[in-house]
């Protein structure tokens, strides 16, 4: 029995011995292996426990390296193990919700009431639905550049030479000389060192903010900033402190408290930004720029100012608030404006010192929220249209005087209207009004009004005034997605393209509509 097993084991044993010797000789053939062997031998002699410890360490290291890094959840304590069959059953049972929640009755009405213009937009567009020509108090055509023949001519010339699309992001042969020209012209116009163009106005500020503000930085922002700024702040992941809407006293208090906190924590100096708007898109309030700049300099903050509404409309030649208040634009670290609104073309820009702009153009590469680097540059003809618009503004300062006249005319009529409250600064080219109730302020924490009911009334006013030949629009917001819910308003955009008489007449129509609808309600 014994002999038979040993006979049977013999080839196995000899094979083992053979492979062992082969392994050994193979191991010693590796350069440097002698050192390892010597180390293991000596360490084992001194302390066999150490060898075991080291072996465990090696095994642990290999295991860690081999472990998949993406599937961390599987080992988590919340992970439930299922058999394949159970998973199949769960998959079969699962019923997803529809991709989109169907529109409510109000939303459907809202959507169907969106005006569609047939043909060119301008001071007197034709509506597609009715075929009627209406007076436009809704579109952003402040300086009356829509349909400007010179702009059109320039656009046509550009088209011939450049085609339409730029067909590439700015980094990859998408920068056309006309982009550089417009960037330079905007910078010269504003008096900053440089500027950078974005291909969509809305995406401009929401990319500019995360380009500079990072996690750990401090942003002090107005509570009622527009949606694009809110998104930008969200993406930046910075620490945000809000101050009361257009209240520089509250801003100063916030700045002081931030400074106090920092002193208490003795933390390092972080980047600090004040973000606000020149003229607020939501209600037409205007910021007191000299005071703001004074605060920013005093507390050593950088200022990001969104001039989407005020650029191209305010000041003698449309340079914006900096011209109006005679504050050098170089004092504003990042001045963001809209080529789409102010210059009646498309896109947006950020102007500032060349460090800011350069930094932006390169840092954009890295961060998320970068609509500059990862998006195709704007079509050449839109850039030259912007350039032409700047030339127009430079040469025709009277246009903005007309605009101011018209604003005054509209406000004069609407101020006398019963049942509504005009909001905003009296020089603002956008004029919001809401229904008059006890509560006058826009941003209220506990709404004392019925949001939907007010929206419906306002929509009735809009519909009525469109039927009477004046195009109006409610200020559209994404309810539930905005940080602060503001009161429903109707937004009037003044334009220089209409004469004072026409504007007065149109405002009269609005007034009549308001009175009619409100009296019906009562």
């Amino acid at each position, binding site marked *: 029995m014994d002999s038979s097993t040993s006979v049977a084991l013999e080839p196995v044993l000899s094979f083992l011995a053979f492979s062992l010797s082969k392994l050994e000789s193979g191991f010693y053939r590796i350069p440097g292996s002698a050192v390892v062997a010597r180390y293991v031998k000596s360490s084992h002699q001194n302390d066999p426990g150490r060898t075991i410890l080291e072996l465990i360490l090696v095994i642990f290291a290999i295991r860690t390296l081999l472990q998949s890094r993406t599937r961390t959840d*599987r080992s988590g304590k*919340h992970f439930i193990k299922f058999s394949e069959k159970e998973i199949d059953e*769960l*998959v079969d049972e*699962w019923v*997803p919700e529809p*991709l*989109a929640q*169907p*529109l409510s009755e109000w939303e459907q009405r*809202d959507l169907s009431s*969106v*005006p569609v*213009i047939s*043909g060119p*937009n301008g001071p007197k567009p034709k509506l597609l639905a009715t075929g009627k020509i209406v007076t*436009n108090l*809704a*579109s*952003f*055509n402040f300086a009356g550049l*829509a*349909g400007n023949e010179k702009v*059109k001519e*320039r*656009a*046509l010339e550009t088209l*011939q*030479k*450049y*085609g*339409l699309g730029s*067909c*590439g992001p700015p980094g*990859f*042969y998408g*920068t*056309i*000389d006309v982009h550089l020209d417009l960037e330079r012209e905007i910078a010269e116009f504003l008096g900053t060192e440089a500027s950078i163009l974005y291909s*969509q106005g*809305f*995406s401009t500020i929401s990319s500019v903010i995360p380009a500079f503000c990072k996690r750990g930085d401090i942003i002090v922002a107005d509570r009622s900033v*527009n*949606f694009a700024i809110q*998104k930008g702040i969200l*993406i930046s992941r910075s620490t945000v402190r809000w101050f009361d809407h257009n209240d520089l006293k509250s801003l100063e208090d916030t700045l002081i408290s931030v400074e106090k906190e920092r002193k208490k924590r003795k933390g390092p*100096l972080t*980047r600090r930004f004040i973000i606000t708007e020149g003229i607020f898109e939501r209600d037409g309030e205007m910021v007191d720029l000299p005071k703001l700049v004074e605060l920013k300099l005093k507390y050593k903050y950088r200022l990001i100012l969104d001039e989407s509404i005020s650029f191209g409309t305010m000041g003698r030649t449309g340079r914006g608030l900096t011209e109006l208040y005679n504050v050098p634009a170089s004092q504003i670290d990042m001045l963001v404006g809209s080529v789409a*609104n102010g210059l*009646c073309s*498309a896109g947006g820009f950020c102007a500032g010192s060349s*460090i800011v702009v350069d930094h932006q153009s390169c840092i954009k*590469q890295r961060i*998320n929220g970068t609509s500059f*680097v990862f998006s195709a540059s704007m079509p050449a*003809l*839109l850039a030259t249209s912007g350039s032409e618009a700047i030339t127009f503004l430079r040469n025709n300062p009277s246009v903005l005087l007309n605009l101011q006249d018209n604003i005054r005319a509209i406000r004069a009529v609407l101020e006398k209207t019963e049942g509504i409250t005009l909001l905003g600064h009296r020089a603002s080219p956008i004029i919001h009004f809401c229904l008059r109730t006890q509560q006058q302020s826009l941003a209220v924490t506990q709404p004392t009004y019925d949001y939907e009911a007010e929206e419906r009334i306002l929509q009735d006013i809009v519909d009525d005034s469109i039927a009477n030949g004046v195009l109006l629009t*409610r200020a*559209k917001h994404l309810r539930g997605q905005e940080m602060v819910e503001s009161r429903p308003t109707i937004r009037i*955009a003044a334009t220089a393209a209409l004469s004072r008489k026409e504007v007065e007449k149109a405002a009269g129509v609005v007034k009549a509509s308001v009175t009619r609808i409100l009296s019906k309600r009562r």
Partner: protein
Amino acid sequence: MSKMLFFLEQDKKTPSLMVLNPPSPSPSIFKEKESASQLPSMTKAVPYSSVVQQADSRAPAHDNPHAAPTRVFSFSSSVTTSSEDTVLNEDDDENCVMNPHTPPTSEQVFTTPHTEFGHCANEAYRCVSKHDYTKPFQERAIEEPPLYVCFATCVSILILYMLGRLRDFFGKRFAKSYFTHLMPHNGYAQLNSDFESFYLRRIKRRMDDCYGQPITGVPGRTVLILDRYSPDYNHTQIYTGGMTRALNVSSYNYLAFSQGRGSWADAVAESIRRYGVSSCGTRLDSGSNDLHVCAEALIAHFLGAEDALVCSMGFATNSTFIPGLAGKGSLIISDELNHTSMRVGIQQSGAEVRIFKHNDMASLESLLREVISQGQPKTHRAWKKILVIVEGLYSMEGTLVNLPRIVELKQKYKFYLYVDEAHSIGSLGSRGRGVTDYFNIPPGSIDVLMGTFSKGFGAAGGYISGPKSLIDALRLRSHSGPYAEAITPSVIAQVVVSMASIMGVTPAPRPTKSTLFPGLDSSIVAPKESAEELPGMAPASMLPMWMNLRPSLADGSEARMRMRRLAFNCRYLHVGLKKLGFIVYGHVSSPIVPLLIFNPGKLCLFVRMMRARPIPIAVVVVAHPATSFNTGRARLCPSASHTKEDIDIVLRACDEVGGILDMKHGSCERWGIDEVCERAVELVHSV
């Protein structure tokens, strides 16, 4: 280790690099030739379209733009066959960038200049973009370079890093004026942290001359590059005022629809005359016009979807619509190589995100099984919905999504599918409908199709399409509707005309104004195709009344020819590079051909050397932010406007430059460059 030396040299401020840097003040040989040929031809009679066009595009842009053009806009109409031919034949310039390889015969009519759209009449150089179901789908063929290349790449990155750190260290102590923005000063914190900006300042700055190169004119077959040089190592760029015409394999003008003249431009011009430049407002308040409505209907028809919605920016299409699709309680499963715009959108949506390995269907399936069985984290509640987001054609890899498999999975696992067709729409598929067309999968089986206009259509902006209920909800609930400016009329007109020309328009009841458009567009129209009628043509009533398409556009033959040229060029370039021994990623049909270079030092050398060739070639290289550090690559984008000879030129250039830079590490069977050029047609049809 040559690149190491090269970087060291650059650091020691020796101007050795400038030899390779063509945008130096001294003009290249090629340019002298160009300007010499320009003068005699300028003196000839007026209606030489290409000559005028060239002169036009050569005129520096900062000249007074109001003074120059006095000629009629619709110039293409005044070009006659004979005059065109004389120009093309008499010009004895041998330069194949300016003039076609084979002069056209009298029957062939070309109205676009050769520099913008290559004249190629050879029907052999065509190919149909279609998936071959007899062959297995290759999800991602990744060829690994030899070990020493990986090693050298790592070493060179390390050297770059250490040099940068050293320079920062000493610079901050001895040259403070250059570092103010990196250091706290005057009570302000530094604007950029030096860690965050290190890559940009110390690594990318070295190759800044390869990025952001300004151009002028149409980014067509060739492109006019504004010459520039940098006296201070790319801190500032100085424009010399000169320009270089280079062969363009970097723009996304796949079908060359972005043209200075021709039907497309004519339609856009008409739209500007009728609508002006701006749409003055957002879609929801008062920026909508009839062109938007018309375009959206046309896009839906084009894609076979119920409804579509346009957005004025491609990036924003993803970043503002995705939040409207999924929110809290939903799960988004995203490919690891999805574009930044999608990642921004996902981030803003508030939904949970899980990532699967690039185009790896097994990984996707196992992930799906896991997430559906586990439900939401901690609570284990079932997901409200799962949205899988993939790209049709990945812009950095050139890979095609494995759509057939994903659609199978979709049926089993009931997720919603979102396909971003930014690069594939227009450029893939026998009918230009993108990946669904390429794989012949009904578009209805995909829930959301998104795409951009800035590539295939030569415009700007993007669209999203799907069921009507979804699109209506997006109109109201997405960020774009109430806050972003509407797409401008000129851009939307380009979209409409491009799309209509791809689809073809069913019997045109409107008489085309023969006085306006006597000629055919840009290239030859094969007569046998003109009568053909394909499904999915657009009814004439869907186009704006004023939009007149030339016959070659209305029957779709012109666009079809372009798509087939594009398909040929893509395949030829892809397979040709492989045969030459390069490592090329991606799918053979992809209009993006990523040519792997690996080493960051070679990236900029590749661009400079390609630009310094007798026939300069404009190429794009991509590195860190878009790809990983050690897989730097050149991204070549052939377009329909390239002729076979152009691709030959690119291949020859790559062959030579790639040989010098030691880039040929592919394992494919190798051919010589001449053999590749000769057997091009065979090569293209072999894959």
